[in-house]
């Protein structure tokens, strides 16, 4: 029994001594973060400063806390320096912090404090200031590509104005508009036109309203009935102007009634309930949905399908296209909606803009082909230069 007792005594009394000694030994302070810099974040309106430092080699660093103090600046030279304020804390291994609420023209002091379990070390104090830039360099290639497309659009508009013949492929959905309006006339039922649920600041609504102009002119010529329920007041006033103009051009101003374009509600599902009620009560022969749609797309199109109406839809909302394709007879997909007014008007200037758009497609196709070939070859050969071509296309040109 003596040996176990001695061991127990040793463990209980003697063994903790060095442990306790180790706990009470003064901890080694971390070396302060080095290489601290305060740099203006580029390509912004002058509201951000990035603070960078080098990770401390001390293994016990638990975090880095970034502090700032405001110095007198250009806008308020007499202002006193403010006390240090913590911006935030990051874990070990992190080497930067972005101060994103800086005021333009104000100089700030920054310091980074490395903290261990029981000590800390301040870095040297650095100063920095945010400046606004006059050009966002990250958008350089967008400017180049967009500018090229715009130039070609303008060029083709000019060419078309001078009488050059331009070929535009047939769009089945638009070819069917006349037939759909004719059917409504024969059946003595109205044509319902829904210009989406967004306001006049949405380009799809504008595209829808330009189409409304063409459709209402045809309706006026056929002497059919038109019903345009809208969900925005500004769309209502604009829609009325468009329909009035169409009736004037068709030589039937007396048939125009401003209540053809009427307001229902701004609320999405309230609007759906209102339009669906109209569809079920009036049973229109033709339903046209042209504009920006969300969840209501299928609710409207399925109801139209149930009453047996010819339905033509057009939207640039990719998530809603499958619903329209499933429920409508014809669907204008994305760019076809924007091309519709040019296509229907037959105006050479507008058709010229479609040709310019095709040049954009050629540029994109070329870039996709180049990227695919370069990426495949880079994978096979491990070539760094080919990979840099891929990186340039992905990260610089089409970011």
């Amino acid at each position, binding site marked *: 029994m003596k040996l176990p007792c001695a061991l127990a005594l040793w463990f209980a009394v003697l063994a903790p001594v060095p442990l306790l000694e180790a706990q009470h030994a003064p901890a080694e302070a971390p070396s302060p973060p080095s290489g601290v810099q305060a740099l203006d974040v580029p390509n912004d309106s002058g509201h951000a400063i990035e603070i960078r430092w080098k990770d401390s080699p001390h293994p016990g660093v638990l975090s880095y806390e970034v502090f700032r103090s405001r110095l007198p600046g250009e806008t308020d030279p007499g202002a006193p320096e403010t006390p240090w304020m913590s911006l935030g804390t990051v874990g070990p291994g992190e080497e930067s912090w972005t101060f994103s609420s800086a005021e333009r023209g104000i100089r700030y002091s920054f310091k980074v404090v490395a903290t261990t379990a029981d000590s800390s070390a301040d870095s040297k104090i650095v100063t920095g200031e945010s400046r606004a830039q006059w050009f966002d360099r990250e958008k350089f290639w967008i400017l180049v590509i967009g500018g090229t497309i715009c130039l070609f659009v303008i060029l083709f508009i000019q060419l078309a104005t001078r009488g050059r013949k331009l070929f535009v492929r047939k769009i089945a959905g638009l070819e069917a508009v006349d037939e759909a309006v004719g059917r409504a006339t024969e059946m003595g039922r109205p044509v319902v036109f829904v210009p989406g649920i967004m306001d006049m600041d949405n380009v799809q609504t504008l595209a829808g309203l330009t189409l409304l102009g063409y459709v209402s002119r045809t309706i006026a010529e056929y002497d059919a009935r038109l019903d345009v329920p809208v969900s925005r*007041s500004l769309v209502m006033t604009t829609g009325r102007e468009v329909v009035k103009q169409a009736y004037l051009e068709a030589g039937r101003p007396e048939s125009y009634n401003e209540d053809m374009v009427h307001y229902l509600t701004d609320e999405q599902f309230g609007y759906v309930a209102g339009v669906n009620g109209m569809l079920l009560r009036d049973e229109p022969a033709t339903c046209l949905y042209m504009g920006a749609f969300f969840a209501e797309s299928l609710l409207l199109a399925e109801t139209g399908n149930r009453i047996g109406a010819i339905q033509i839809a057009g939207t640039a909302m990719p998530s809603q296209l499958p619903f329209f394709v499933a429920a409508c007879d014809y669907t204008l997909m994305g760019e076809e909606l924007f091309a519709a007014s040019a296509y229907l008007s037959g105006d050479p200037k507008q058709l010229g803009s479609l040709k310019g758009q095709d040049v954009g497609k050629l540029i994109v196709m070329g870039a996709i082909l180049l990227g695919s070939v370069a990426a495949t070859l880079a994978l096979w050969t491990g070539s760094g230069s080919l990979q840099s071509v891929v990186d340039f296309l992905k990260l610089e040109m089409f970011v």
Partner: protein
Amino acid sequence: MRRQIPLLITFVVGVIMLFEAFIPHPPFDQLNESLSITFDVLAAFAFVLGGGNLAKIHLAKISRSQPGWGYSAVTMAGFFAMLAIGLFKVGGPSGVKHALEAEGSWFQAAYDYCFLPLSATTFSLLAFFVASASYRAFRAKNREATVLLIAALIILLGRTLVGAALTETLPGSLELLFGALLAYLAWEQFRSKRWIPLALIGTVAAFVLARTLYGYLILAGGGDFYLLTVPDLVNWIMVVPQLAGQRAIMIGICLGIISMSLRLILGVERSYLGSDTD
């Protein structure tokens, strides 16, 4: 003049907004937000026009007892009730500084217990409409619809537990199914004496079936061999063909917007401005 002034405004604002996209420096950095706020203010004023039109049309229907005037009566009752309890802040603290959603507000109660359930009910109809639209869309009427049907079935399977369980309990079942389908197509080519398609389809079918059998041998020997699973196939469909199609549409939309915007800025497209005469 009725057209020239709006065209000039469109041109000037359009060009400024083009610059705004590339210039982060003040005053361009705030332009987008400022113009959005201005538009919201205009839209708020225009709401009076919308509300007035709604009341005009429905009150006329009620007064003439036109067919469906009962619906108009319900609409007007709801419209004026919400307008009154909102304007007079019934039930809640009155005064400009108090919010409409304050404690005890009838407006908030009407919103929570009438409007929200009605909206949710309308939205819920989508479940039934999706089912009926899917049934119509997925009928194998032609080759494209058949491809759509197969893709949809795979995705439906893969997004449920059934898909994962199927290929876990029967590894290689997808390869066997695909191989059998190709073998059937090859047999059809053989019967039609179309030798080139037969050679192509037959080679692929033989490769798929041989690879699967080889995989079984490796797995039986305790080795490791990858056989396709339904969730992996679903992932591939979503990430490769589906995404490629979606991106193509997105690129077309972007180009369409550029072209449409230029037509509007340059005044080539002006039908949205309506009549030139009063």
